[in-house]
Each structure stands twice: as structure tokens, then as C-alpha cells.
């Protein structure tokens, strides 16, 4: 291929690549713009690209959407459910990775199958159970449910990271009399810290964005941002600027988390089927 042709191809790729990227990102960008507009500017026709930015929406969204309360729910549900899942998953992944029997494979696949059970299939009993034990609309119930539904994925990811640790290292520790929990804590966790971190990030992202359970088993008390946005959209759909401000503030932290871990994401989301 001649040099000029190659150059032209690269230029074309750059133009199309950037054009597509801007189109895909546009809705997020447009929402971010609306967040800094006044309500009049947000509903202006023709749409305004240049305007006097205001921070008013961020000040008022807490009052209108109850932003801070829901944000606190989102933070506590996603972080605690992740810690809960990690604490349960780490020992399980350790056993499967280093003391696997011929049943390990079956257990792993069984866990995978649970991950794919549709939530609607179990919504009704869970709802009725929560009503009868008075746990409806509590962050506790939501945390446990989300933690359990992410557990299979967390086990799978940890397993794949643990597997990469040479078993000789653990063998040596065992010779020196280290018990399984000691090995896990002082060897495996430090050795696979980056992997554990990306597992935690993925679990936080999924928990933060989880909408089905949030909509169905929480309300004003335990509702996360996903629910707050959904119910606000249905009741007061006309305060677009404030709604955009709340949306932006709900999406931004997770977007940053996602960008940080984009490389590890594929492995987690495909259960290692694509690396």
C-alpha cells in the first residue's frame, strides 16, 4: 500500500471514528448541558447550545428529587452489597481454584445458571416474604438481594484471578504451616489486588445501576437513585433541567468507574468466555 493511501485511510478512520464517538456520547452530553440550564433554557426552541450556565439545579434537585437521601442509599447499597459478595465469594473462589474436586466445575456452572435466573420469576415470593417480615422498602433487603444476585459473577471473576496465581507459592506457604485463611489474606489478596479491585468495581457498577429490584421493592425510604429518577420522571416530567442535574449526578461517578476498568470489564461480563 502506498504511503499516501495509508495516510488517507487513517484520516478517514479518524473522521468517522470521532463522528461516531460524538454521536454515541451525544445524549449524555446533551443531558449534562441541560443540567446547567435554567428550566426556560432547557425547554427553549430552537434548542440552545450556548447559554448562561447556572448551578441552581444542583442546589434545588435535593429538594425536588431528594437527591442526597437517594444518593446515600445508592452508595450504601452498592458498597455494602459488594463487600458482602466479596466476603462470601473469596473463600469459595479460593477453594475452587486451589482445592478443586471433580464437582467444582458443576458448582461453578450451577452458580452461573443462578445468575441467569430472571428476577421476575422470583419477584412475587420475595415481595410477599418482605411484606410479611416487614422488610419492604429497606436498604437491608435491597442490599442482600443485590449482593446475592451479583455473587455468582463475583465468584467467577475472583476464581479467574486466583487461577493465575502459581499454586507453588501457596504450596510453599502451606509447608510453612499457613492455614487457608492466612494464605488467602496474606498471599492471595495482595497478589491479586488489581483483580479484586476490578471485581469490586464491576459489582458496584451493577449494583448502582440495578433498577428492577429498586423499582419493585423500595419506595421513598430505601429508594436508590435509579428509583428516584424513575419515579420523578413519571410524576413531574416537566422539570427537565433539575431532572437532568439529578441524572448527571447519578451517572457521573459510575461512568468514571466504568472508564477506569474498561479492560477488565469484558472478562467479568462474559464470565471469562472472552479475554
Amino acid at each position, binding site marked *: 500500500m502506498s504511503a499516501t493511501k495509508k495516510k488517507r485511510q487513517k484520516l478517514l*478512520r479518524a473522521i468517522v*471514528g470521532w463522528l*461516531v464517538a460524538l454521536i*454515541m*456520547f451525544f*445524549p*449524555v452530553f*446533551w*443531558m449534562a448541558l441541560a443540567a446547567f440550564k435554567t428550566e426556560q433554557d432547557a425547554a427553549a*426552541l*430552537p434548542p440552545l447550545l450556548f447559554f448562561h450556565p447556572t448551578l441552581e439545579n444542583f442546589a434545588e434537585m435535593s429538594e425536588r428529587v431528594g437527591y442526597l437521601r437517594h444518593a446515600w442509599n445508592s452508595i450504601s447499597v452498592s458498597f455494602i452489597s459488594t463487600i458482602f459478595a466479596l466476603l462470601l465469594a473469596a*473463600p*469459595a473462589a479460593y*477453594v475452587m481454584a486451589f482445592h478443586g474436586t471433580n464437582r467444582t*466445575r458443576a458448582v*461453578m*456452572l450451577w452458580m452461573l445458571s*443462578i445468575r*441467569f*435466573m*430472571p*428476577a*421476575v*420469576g*422470583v*419477584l*412475587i*415470593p*420475595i415481595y*410477599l416474604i418482605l411484606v410479611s417480615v416487614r422488610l419492604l422498602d429497606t436498604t437491608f433487603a435491597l442490599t442482600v438481594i443485590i449482593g*446475592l*444476585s451479583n455473587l455468582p459473577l463475583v*465468584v467467577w471473576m475472583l476464581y479467574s484471578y486466583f487461577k493465575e496465581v502459581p499454586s507453588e507459592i501457596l504450596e510453599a506457604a502451606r509447608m510453612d504451616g499457613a492455614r487457608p485463611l492466612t494464605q488467602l489474606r496474606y498471599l492471595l489478596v495482595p497478589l491479586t489486588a488489581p483483580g479484586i479491585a476490578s471485581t469490586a468495581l464491576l459489582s458496584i*457498577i451493577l449494583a*448502582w*445501576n440495578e*433498577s*428492577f429490584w429498586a423499582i419493585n421493592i423500595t419506595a421513598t425510604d430505601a429508594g436508590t*437513585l*435509579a*428509583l428516584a*429518577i*424513575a419515579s420523578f*420522571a*413519571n410524576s413531574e416530567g416537566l422539570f*427537565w433541567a433539575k431532572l437532568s442535574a439529578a*441524572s448527571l449526578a*447519578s*451517572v457521573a461517578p*459510575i*461512568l468514571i*468507574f*466504568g*472508564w477506569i476498568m*474498561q479492560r477488565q470489564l*469484558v472478562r467479568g461480563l*462474559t*464470565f471469562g*468466555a*472472552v479475554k
Partner: protein
Amino acid sequence: MLPAIILLAIWMIVPLALTIWYSFQNYNLQIPPPEWGGLINYEFLLTDPDLPRVLKNTLVLVFAPIGVTVVLGTLLALLYDGPFPGRPIARLLVIAPFFVMPTVAALVWKNLILHPVWGLVSWLMKSVGLAPIDWFSTYPMTAIVIIVSWIWTPFTTLILLTSLQSLDREQLEAARMDGARSLATFRYVVLPHLYRPISVVVMLETIFFLAIYAEIYVTTQGGPGTETTNIPFYIFSRALQGFDVGLASAGGLLAVILANIVAFFFIRAIAKQL
């Protein structure tokens, strides 16, 4: 290992067993107590005049976004596989929609982009002399497919991109040396390499798209009529709005069975390489 297994077993077995149990009960929350109903819920479910529509909507909501995301995702992956100035940043922008929570995504599309009066698309159409469309009442299904595809195209792109980067560069070079045109290289070298990741994407998306819920909840609430009601939303409306526990449970089992058929193939594919 045990605590995780026990909890997961409880998490799976108890609700599922109860769903099965309720599906045989004649149980409406407004008319307690429950009584044995036999197959009455299944009879009702299978003869519900809405059911064909609901099943059709469910299938459309699975296959239309899969078609869009796989085709677009493949093209985007090929696009971003080659180098150009600023590629890392362009790539970050492209994958962004995947991290937007579904309720926010639905809201932005509904109010800021597709709204018949204030939406950007309507404004664009008006400025070129076309009549703006009220997407969510005229083409509600198309609108939801657009939202879902927007969220999931980055997922497909990301997976196929990862897979492309593991493609043997020497093999590509060799094909080129032999005089293969780029289309032929794509057809006989790249596409076979992508076959596996694409099938993984299709299976995972099928499972996730069978459960599409928040996007409908925020935009159309299943309407107009039942035009955008899929199985999850049907169950939601029967259970939490109609209080019919028995019927909703029977519908829930239908969803479990559908998802399991797909999950079976996915798990079998995974098992091969475990």
C-alpha cells in the same frame, strides 16, 4: 465455599419453589386467603388474549436490539481497532452509554431527544421540513429498541474489540501478502475469529433482553394498550397492579423457562472451556 453455596441455594430454591407453589393457587391479594386453584392460572395465562401480543413484544425486544447491536458493534469494533489520533478518548466516549443507568437513559431519550415538542430529533426534523413524530405513541416499540440498542452497542463493541486485539496480526499480514482484498480478509480471517465472541454476545444479550423492564417502566408503561408490554412488564402489571399473585407466578415461571433455554446453550458453551 460452603456459606456462598448455601446462601445461593436458598436464594434460588426458596423463591423458585414458592413461585411454583403460588402458580397453582387461586390467590389475589385483595381477596385473601389463597386457595388451591390447580391449573387455573395456567389456563388463564395461556388463554389470555394479551398473551400472543406479549410474547411477540418480548421476542421483538430481544431480537431487534440484538440485530442492531451486533451489526453496529462489529462495525464499531473494526473502526476502533485501527489507530487514529485521539482513539483512546473516542473509545471512552463510545462505551459511555453502557454505564448510564437504564432509568436515566430512558428518561434522557424520552424527554430531551425524542420528545415530540422539545426533543432534539423533533427540532431537527422540523428544521428540514418534516413533521415531528411522537415516538412513544406512534412507534413506541421502535423508540424502546433505540434506547436499548444505544445502551448495549458499547457492550458488543467492547467485547468484539477485545477479541479483535487477540487476533494474530501475522495471519492478517499473510493474507494481505497473498493478495487478499480487505473484504476477503474480513470474510475469511476476521469474521471466523469473531464467531465465538459474537455468539457469546448473542446469548448474554438474549438473557438480559428477556428481562428488559426499566426502559419500559420509565417511557411507555407497557402502552399504548399492550403495544410495548413484554413478559416482565406483563407480570409486573398483573402482580403489583392487579394483585393477582397466582397468575403473575405462572407468568414468572414462563419467564424462567424461556431464560433457561438460552442459558442452557450459554452454559454449555462456557463449560467446554472451563
